[in-house]
């Protein structure tokens, strides 16, 4: 199943105002992996994500999604392969009702009406919000919006799920539910987040960005145990790995 691969080779990006957001990023994510991309504010996470669906073109280097290099010609195919969940669901849910929003992608793929209906209902059921299908998006709660946003991407059956800060703004229960949901997905997952406990729960591999470069790339647990690295990259150990000031549990125990 080679088409679930994401490969970046020395990707550089300079914004028109001269800001060098990415300074040579290389990594390879293979089928079925769950990878977190973490880093301080301004480390280049968002810029990197926008390269994965071809919204931004690299100033240098190459992006390969599946078997294809990302070019203008392969763009439609790539966008079908990579499902992107945005940080702010309000940006993603633009259609008048939940149903129409989830149906937006499949219709654009040119699927017949019956197939679209099947896919929409399936995606809505997967994230547990099929009862909301006739509601307008602006009347949903934050957690519901997030679920619908995920459904709107699932309905295109992407091979690769890219999520930008999926747990921001959720209450603890909704966050926990979302983590459970994401664990069930068999897709290749690429997640950016500052919620390092969630990363620890879901992603076995972590890539640390620092000032537009890959500072570290390895097993999540190993990376989060490296105090010096975390400090240098303006990160902190996930709470669940920190020592407990109340019960005296030592640092590093889970």
């Amino acid at each position, binding site marked *: 199943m080679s088409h679930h691969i994401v490969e970046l080779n020395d990707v550089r990006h300079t914004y028109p105002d001269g800001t060098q957001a990415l300074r040579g990023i290389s990594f390879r994510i293979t089928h079925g992996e769950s990878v977190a991309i973490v880093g301080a504010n301004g480390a280049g996470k968002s810029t990197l994500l*926008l390269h994965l*669906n071809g*919204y931004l073109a690299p100033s240098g280097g190459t992006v390969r999604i599946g078997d294809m290099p990302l070019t203008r010609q392969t763009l*439609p195919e790539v*966008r*079908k392969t*990579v*499902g*992107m969940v*945005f940080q*702010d669901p*309000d*940006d*993603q849910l*633009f*259609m*008048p*009702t939940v*149903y*129409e929003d989830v*149906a*937006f*992608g499949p*219709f*654009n*793929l040119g699927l017949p009406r019956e197939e679209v209906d099947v896919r929409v209902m399936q995606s809505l059921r997967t994230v547990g919000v099929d009862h909301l299908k006739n509601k*307008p*998006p*602006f*009347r949903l709660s934050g957690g519901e919006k997030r679920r619908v946003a995920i459904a*709107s*991407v699932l309905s*295109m059956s992407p091979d690769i799920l890219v999520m930008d800060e999926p747990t921001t703004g959720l209450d603890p229960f909704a966050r926990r539910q979302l983590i459970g949901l994401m664990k069930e997905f068999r897709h290749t997952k690429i997640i950016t987040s500052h919620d390092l406990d969630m990363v620890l729960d879901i992603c076995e591999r972590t890539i640390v960005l620092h000032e537009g470069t890959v500072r570290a790339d390895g097993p999540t647990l190993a990376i989060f145990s490296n105090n010096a690295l975390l400090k240098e990259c303006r990160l902190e150990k996930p709470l669940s790995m920190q020592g407990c000031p109340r019960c005296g549990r030592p640092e590093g125990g889970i």
Partner: protein
Amino acid sequence: MYSTQEIYEHQAGNYMIKNGSAFFDFNYLDILARGDTIIHRVDPRAKVLTTVLFIIAVISVGKYEISALLPFFLFPALNISLGGLPLSYISRKILLLSPFILFVGIFNPFFDTEPIIRFGAFGISGGWLSFVSILIRFALTVGAAFILIATTGFNEICTACEKMGLPKAFAVQLLFLYRYIFVLGDEVIRVSRARELRSFGKRGKGLKVFGSIVGNLLLRTWDRAQRIHTAMLCRGFRGEFHFRRPPGFGSAEAVYTVAWTAYFLLCRMVDIPGSVGDIFSRVLR
């Protein structure tokens, strides 16, 4: 057991309390639009068409006419009663907009002082007549628009317009406007609250700050538009929108449209209040 209508009203009541601001309680119109009455079931196209014809008919009435406008009240009255709409809510909506129209018409009595109707020594000037006529026409047309939204729903209206030949770009613009007016409204409320909390007395409330707030909102809107466009591209957008089809245009729709159109024509051609008055005076004689 509650009727659906009662549940809608209950939900709507909650919304009004939560949002408070009268300008942003469009939510309630949307909730009303989910009702299921004989009027709600008419195809959106028929309702849009009829409402447009109604508005044209009302506007085309001469500027000193008042009695000729009265028969037109049948249209909103029937729609409100058959559509199960709360009259108080619709009238409040109209009242809310009325200050604007008061300004439009308020100078008529001063400029147009020629008396047109006389009761003995009293004369009513053309200015007053046209002023009242403007107010009535305003109430009729704006009321009809609100009733249309409350019995049809904004999205369905846009789809209907598109199906009747409005260029897709306009229909989609309208839809996006409706979708994001709430988001923008929220942002406006948050920004004004932030300003409120940090301004004391008159300081910080000047026009200059207002200007920069508006500029800021504009830039944010621009950013958001870009993000939405990205989201659309990510899901394969190529300029085509697909909506669920509205119900068909059947015989009921044809009857609805034709009957109302005929009635509007009748109102315009025949002076109904005048004829009724004639009949009465003849009977009394």
